């Protein structure tokens, strides 16, 4: 009986430790999309550091050499482990996360764990080489005087406590706005960057936290076992952890726990109950090979795992009564402004308007509270590709608060110009000025934070986030949107989240897409995704909105809806630059138009003027 109880206790400790580790990996990989193929290294780091912080300076065993040996009281060694894990992750992440390809990153991390194992084994003085450390005193073992079995259960309680803390922490993080940013990054790093996310920095943060969590799990394990050696941490262990969270279900804590239970617990323990039919070695290898087959089967038949990431239905959180715009007065004033503006500017097209236009009622709250229009100017902007000058000494200035069209034949450089302004590509020369400040060469995420928001030519939705999440992810200034903010808790972020939900819902209502609020963006039709992209760019609080062919692939009715919204934004004072081939849309929405050809600015004016401009007509015909 006692043997069974102590066995059960051991299993529980292992389950707890493995679950904590899986939560760490889930944060890195499931949420952040970082393939940490050096995972076991962090658990090992935690184990080693905990050991050498617990052990006294003088080796208690003969021939056991190691660094530190500070003999710190519990729980300091665990804290030290967390710090060490985080530091190691920072160091490794600084080079391993540099390549853009995730499979390349994964390969580099795998290689890191190989070299680490080699070094630890060969450098005797670090952690006693291949023999490893042993005789590590278990915390409070002596003082509690519980006897072996009793101590086991004490440790179960300790592990349970640690797991609880880890659960609260990771749950807090993974349900925060910051985690939403990570998921967005995971889905489409470029689009996330264009909305202000510093992808590299946030990836490193997720990596570091995961590393710390893995380290703590290692620390607990070594305190229980009392020994640790390179045999405990090969690249195979990393693989098994990955199998666990993929089988259990990526992206959510319960899935990670399920994986820890089923794979690390049940599956690995099973052989002890089967009759022995071969040597221990053979059985272990068979088991490992079976794990390989298991993951292949899951990747083929059920890649989302047993318990997939649950869809976050935010629509039920939308504050009641939001379908009416929050501010009614300004919209009335705005309509008047539109009227007078129409009278001031000679816009015959406005009256001509499309037949059977769908009546638009109120402007969304977001548009009503816009930041003052920004000024955008480019000067001598230059960029070439493979010997061709895509953009050739381009200079223009946008009238703030107006919509400007950017048209021209194929190969004119319009899209490139937009990307240069938004920071997606670096210019070879020239300047980009926002409100008079030189922002040339700033990366995309910094430009986004300045309010320069760009939509993409090919839709770039965050596929596995719902439409509402896509919209909210784009909004700046979210208290829960940084790691620190996330840790401060839900209440800290709640007010702003509610606000944003209201805004997003109102936007959806305007575009008549509220029924899609909780649908995964990846499941939408092409036209719907285009609308989500536009709404998302609006949620990002643009001060200058750069639209890259917003009407591409959009049917005529939808086109009118989008045009109406653009007009409203224009009237609300948003500076817009729209690259578009649909010249009808350009004519209806834009106050003035810039024509580019062969990378240069050809002419500016209204569409009517340009049609009469012989040079422009030639350019279109001459290409």
């Amino acid at each position, binding site marked *: 009986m006692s043997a069974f109880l102590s066995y059960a206790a051991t299993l529980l400790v292992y389950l707890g430790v493995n679950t904590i580790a899986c939560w760490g990996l889930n944060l890195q990989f499931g949420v952040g999309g970082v393939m940490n193929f050096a995972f076991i290294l962090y658990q090992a780091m935690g184990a080693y550091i905990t050991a050498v912080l617990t052990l006294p300076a003088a080796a208690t065993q003969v021939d056991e050499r190691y660094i530190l040996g500070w003999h710190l009281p519990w729980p300091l060694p665990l804290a030290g482990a967390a710090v060490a894990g985080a530091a190691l992750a920072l160091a490794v992440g600084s080079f391993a996360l540099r390549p853009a390809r995730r499979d390349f990153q994964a390969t580099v991390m795998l290689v890191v764990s190989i070299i680490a194992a080699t070094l630890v084994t060969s450098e005797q003085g670090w952690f006693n080489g291949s023999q490893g450390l042993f005789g590590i005193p278990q915390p409070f073992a002596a003082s509690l005087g519980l006897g072996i079995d009793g101590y086991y259960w004490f440790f179960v309680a300790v592990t349970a406590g640690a797991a609880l803390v880890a659960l609260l922490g990771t749950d807090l993080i993974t349900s925060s706005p910051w985690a939403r940013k990570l998921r967005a990054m995971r889905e489409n790093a470029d689009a996330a960057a264009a909305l202000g996310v510093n992808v590299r920095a946030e990836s490193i943060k997720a990596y570091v936290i995961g590393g710390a969590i893995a380290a703590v799990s290692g620390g607990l394990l070594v305190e229980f076992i009392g020994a640790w050696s390179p045999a405990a941490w090969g690249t195979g262990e990393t693989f098994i952890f990955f199998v666990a969270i993929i089988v259990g279900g990526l992206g959510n804590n319960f899935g990670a726990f399920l994986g820890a239970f089923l794979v690390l617990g049940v599956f690995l323990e099973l052989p002890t109950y089967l009759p022995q039919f071969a040597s221990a070695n053979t059985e272990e290898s068979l088991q490992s090979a079976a794990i390989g087959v298991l993951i292949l089967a899951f990747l083929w038949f059920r890649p989302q795992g047993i318990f997939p990431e649950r869809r976050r239905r935010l629509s039920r959180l939308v504050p009641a009564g939001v379908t009416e715009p929050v501010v009614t007065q300004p919209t009335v004033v705005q309509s008047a402004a539109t009227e007078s503006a129409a009278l001031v500017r000679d816009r015959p097209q406005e009256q001509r308007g499309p037949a059977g236009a769908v009546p638009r009622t109120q402007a969304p709250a977001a548009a009503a509270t816009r930041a003052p229009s920004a000024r955008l100017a480019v000067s001598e902007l230059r960029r070439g590709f493979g010997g061709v000058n895509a953009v050739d000494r381009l200079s223009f200035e946008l009238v703030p608060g107006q919509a400007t069209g950017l048209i021209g*034949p*194929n190969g004119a450089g319009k899209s490139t110009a937009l990307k240069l302004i938004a920071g997606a590509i670096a210019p070879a020369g020239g300047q980009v000025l926002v409100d008079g400040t030189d922002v040339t060469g700033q990366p995309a995420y910094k430009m986004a934070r300045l309010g320069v928001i760009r939509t993409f030519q090919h839709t770039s939705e965050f596929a596995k986030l719902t439409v509402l999440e896509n919209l909210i992810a784009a909004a700046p200034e979210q208290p829960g949107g940084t790691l620190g903010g996330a840790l401060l808790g839900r209440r800290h972020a709640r007010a702003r989240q509610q606000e944003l939900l209201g805004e997003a819902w109102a936007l959806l209502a305007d575009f008549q897409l509220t029924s899609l609020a909780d649908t995964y963006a990846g499941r939408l039709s092409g036209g719907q995704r285009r609308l989500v992209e536009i709404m998302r760019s609006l949620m990002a609080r643009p001060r200058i909105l750069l639209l890259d062919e917003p009407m*591409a*692939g959009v049917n005529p009715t939808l086109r009118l809806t989008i045009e109406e919204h653009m007009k409203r934004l224009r009237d609300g004072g948003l500076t817009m630059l729209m690259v578009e*081939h649909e010249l*009808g849309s350009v*004519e209806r929405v834009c106050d003035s138009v810039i024509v580019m050809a062969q990378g240069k600015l050809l002419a500016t004016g209204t569409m009517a003027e340009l049609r009469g401009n012989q040079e422009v*007509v030639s350019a279109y015909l*001459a290409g």
Partner: protein
Amino acid sequence: MRISLGKAGRPGADGGAGTGTGTAAALTVTGLAAGYGDTPTIADVDLTVGRGEIVTVLGPNGAGKSTLLKAVLGHLRPMAGSVLLGDRELTGLRSDQVCRLSVGYVPQVNDTFPRLTVLENIEMGGYTLARSVMKARLEEVTELYPQLRRLASRQGGHLSGGERKIVAIARAMMISPALLVLDEPTAGLAPRPADELLTEHIAALAGTGVSLLMVEQRAREALAISHRAYVMAAGRVVLSDRAELLLARPDLGEVFLGRAVPG
């Protein structure tokens, strides 16, 4: 097959539809509809390219010109209609099958193998040829564009835009295609090389007997070297006529700048 030398290659004075060198037209497209997703981007497209003709497809962006090319070349499966090469059915065939049926293709982008030399690039065009035929063809193609001799060992990625296009055309010509399809050959080129490409290099093909189907943005110059042309807008063919007649139309520019086309 002897290729006539020289830069001549201007279309004959009587460039009417389906000039009578052969029996069936080189390419016959009837009632073609194609697109991505559920709704067709182009519909009811009828188009022919006679043997030895140069036919240009013009139109504003979004008109469906590249969709048309993709459907002809087998990159897209047509939703309706048919595509005939001579009297062979092309409809629904995959792109490598289409290629084997003697259709050459010069894409708009990624038209060369950057790390292969010019000579190797062109050789790749003749991949499906027997070795004995390859050498002879290589000679013939080099006669068509003598500047290739000078560029022979330059890497594909180190060429200027204009030079790349010539290499791409030479490559496509290696299989002596019955039909050569060019997708916006002057895209991304500065005015002078673009002009040269159209008026000299592409026009030179007219003398080789190959039929040309070309999508172009530089409408005037393209029309100047073509026999006939089609203008597309919003997925349909809105104008079709002999090139010189289209060129003479005063409202051509307005068609491009978005005005509706009368009649």
